[in-house]
């Protein structure tokens, strides 16, 4: 049984110093504290800078005696994160977990992983190979993915409308489509293109 009293405390504490850490954790629905959504800012001085990365969190029954399950919901180009599934290769989310760690400290570790890739212990072999053999291309791809997938959601609604209208879609249709996909710009574009 998940210790929900502790989870509740963790959420309060984490969101209290959001101003400092930039790290946020929200329940996906009010009814269920076992499914959460974390947000971490891309570290400065990395190709992830300026991006806002969403992480799906599922708490196993044994939490906090078992680690939370975390995977990237935002696509990210990094040797230790699957470019396909968002799965994260990080020891503290596996055998190095300690019940003294929290959702916030785990997310801080994920953020630190973005700053310090470990290409010799890859989760995504293609990305790791690129990192080792062609570092400039790796940097370019990682930056492109950040701009394409991790920065759009930080745009205001009006920016998104403007961007899509500039692509030639009628404004009224753009607005209704954005509403129907909960403001997700990429999904709105897909929907608009498919007619």
């Amino acid at each position, binding site marked *: 049984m998940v210790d929900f*009293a502790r989870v509740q*405390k963790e959420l309060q504490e984490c969101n209290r110093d959001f101003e400092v850490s930039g790290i946020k954790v929200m329940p996906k629905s009010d009814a269920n504290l076992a499914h959460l959504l974390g947000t971490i800012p891309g570290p400065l001085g990395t190709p992830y800078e300026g991006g806002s990365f969403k992480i799906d969190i599922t708490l196993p029954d*044994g939490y*906090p*005696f*078992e680690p939370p399950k975390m995977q990237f919901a935002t696509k990210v180009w990094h040797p230790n994160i699957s470019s396909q599934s968002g799965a994260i290769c990080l020891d503290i989310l596996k055998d190095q977990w300690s*019940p*003294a760690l929290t959702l916030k400290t785990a997310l801080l570790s994920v953020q630190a992983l973005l700053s310090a890739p470990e290409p010799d212990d890859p989760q995504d072999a293609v990305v790791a190979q690129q990192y080792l053999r062609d570092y400039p291309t790796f940097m370019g791809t990682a930056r492109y993915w950040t701009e394409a997938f991790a920065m759009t959601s930080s745009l205001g609604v009006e920016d998104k409308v403007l961007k899509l209208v500039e692509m030639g879609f009628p404004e009224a249709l753009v607005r209704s489509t954005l509403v129907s996909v909960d403001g997700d710009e990429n999904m709105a574009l897909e929907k608009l293109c498919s007619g």
Partner: protein
Amino acid sequence: MGNSLVAAKEKHNLKRQSTFGDDNESSWDSAVMGWNPHGKWHAVASWTWDAQDETCGICRMAFDGCCPDCKLPGDDCPLIWGACNHAFHLHCILKWVNSQTPQAHCPMCRREWQFKG
């Protein structure tokens, strides 16, 4: 493991009962709560666990409170110290130790967990 734990707990309880004041695990404060009109002082004593952190690193509840499985703080939900001097609710650290095979580590410092003898 089971036997050494029982021994550790008994020793811990004995220590608490046998000292009144300078025990290194809990401390007592005498306090006079009030004066009543019949002219009698009512002295009461209060105690707190003498742990460095105020909350258990596992359940994040106050040490003066109890673990999430207990209803009342006190001897039924004791604190226990590791050889590394980190304290937890006994019930919390037991759940962690029992979930780790073959050797559990202290959740705070990752040293091999040993109950303080």
